[in-house]
């Protein structure tokens, strides 16, 4: 764990698995950010790359920005901001 930013918060976050190289990891992160941003814009939130730390920037349209370390943390923080979880098994997804 980095003593400055606290990332990664836990060992071997499962959503980080699967990349064989640094390039794979960057491409995977870019694809994930694209999906997250598209999904969460519908709920009034935006997602961008973490910038200098390996996380995601989750923002409200009001300007509040929270840095989160991984995908599970994105959904937990989004639920906090929205007051309810983003549920893929509920409308408008099913």
């Amino acid at each position, binding site marked *: 764990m980095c003593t400055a930013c606290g990332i990664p918060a836990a060992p*071997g976050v*499962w*959503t980080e698995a699967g*990349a*064989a190289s640094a390039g794979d990891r960057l491409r995977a992160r870019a694809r994930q950010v694209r999906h997250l941003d598209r999904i969460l814009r519908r709920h009034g939130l935006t997602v961008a790359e973490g910038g200098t730390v390996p996380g995601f920037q989750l923002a409200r349209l009001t300007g509040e920005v929270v840095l989160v370390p991984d*995908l599970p943390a994105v959904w937990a923080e989004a*639920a906090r901001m929205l007051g309810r979880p983003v*549920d*893929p098994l509920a409308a408008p*997804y099913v």
Partner: protein
Amino acid sequence: MSDGRLPLTLLGGALGSGKTTWARHQLYDGAFGAGLHVLVNEAAEVPVDDQLLVRAEGVTVLAGGCVCCTGQQALRAALRDLCDRRSRGAGPNRVLLETSGLADPGAIAANLRSDPILARHLRLDGILVAIDAVHALTQLAEEPLIHRQIAVADRLILTKVDVANPADLQRLQVGLGLRNPAAKIEGSQHGVTVALPSTPRDFPASLPASPNPPDPAVAAVLQLPADLDWAETMVWLSALLHARGDRVVRVKGVIPSAEGRLLVQSVRGVVEPPELLPPQPRDGDGRLVFLGRGFSETALEQSLRSFLDLPDAESSGCSEQEDGIAV
């Protein structure tokens, strides 16, 4: 693939299902290798099972509370002690936790994963559940806990197969396969692994439902689209488990990735770091098994596609899935 963490195997099952008999024989056979430490949890104050497990390198008894609830702190303390000893070079190579018959192994797995120290030092290597082939049909009709134990198992060990009614045994074999398609089912007689009889494909196999369940348990198999990227699958699956982790009791499957074949498995929304499997592709690759309540195969597929903005199955050439099996 080893990541340096201490492998922990959970052995659960109802009271009297033959857990200790099975463990004792497996220890005798050396099935767990050298350096095994056994933790025995007995809900009663007076332990007896530890007397039977003398072949283990070390045995710790956690008596007087079930480790999935009241005895949780004692379990954490015992495991932290083992991890600490291992860090100093004197600890075990593997831990087997035999739970009490009252324990929910899924709750134990979730508790351990939420512990910041144990999450870094322990790797859940598998959940084994012993099923009493003589009494299981009655227990299933009367005891909701056994349904939860079955749902989270990686291996279901049918015990006492030598004295079980052959028709009941076949019903259990097929019914358990439908209830938890991700689990391997094996037979045992006095702790010795034995082959199970073959069963006809059309064998009537419905198992008794859980008493007063909120809604039916479902086992659903989702075939991931061949062109779906693993990183995108993680976006959907992580959202699903965050929102529905209490209802999606178990997820297990192999996801092809850039690094190789990833074995992904979760218990009640808690996901272990995926294991990288040998590179040879197998038939079940790209298929995820979901066990729980409140979803169907159709809903899962629709959710995946709309969440990730994928084209419909028909236009992308995917075969149509049948709906989940109510079990």
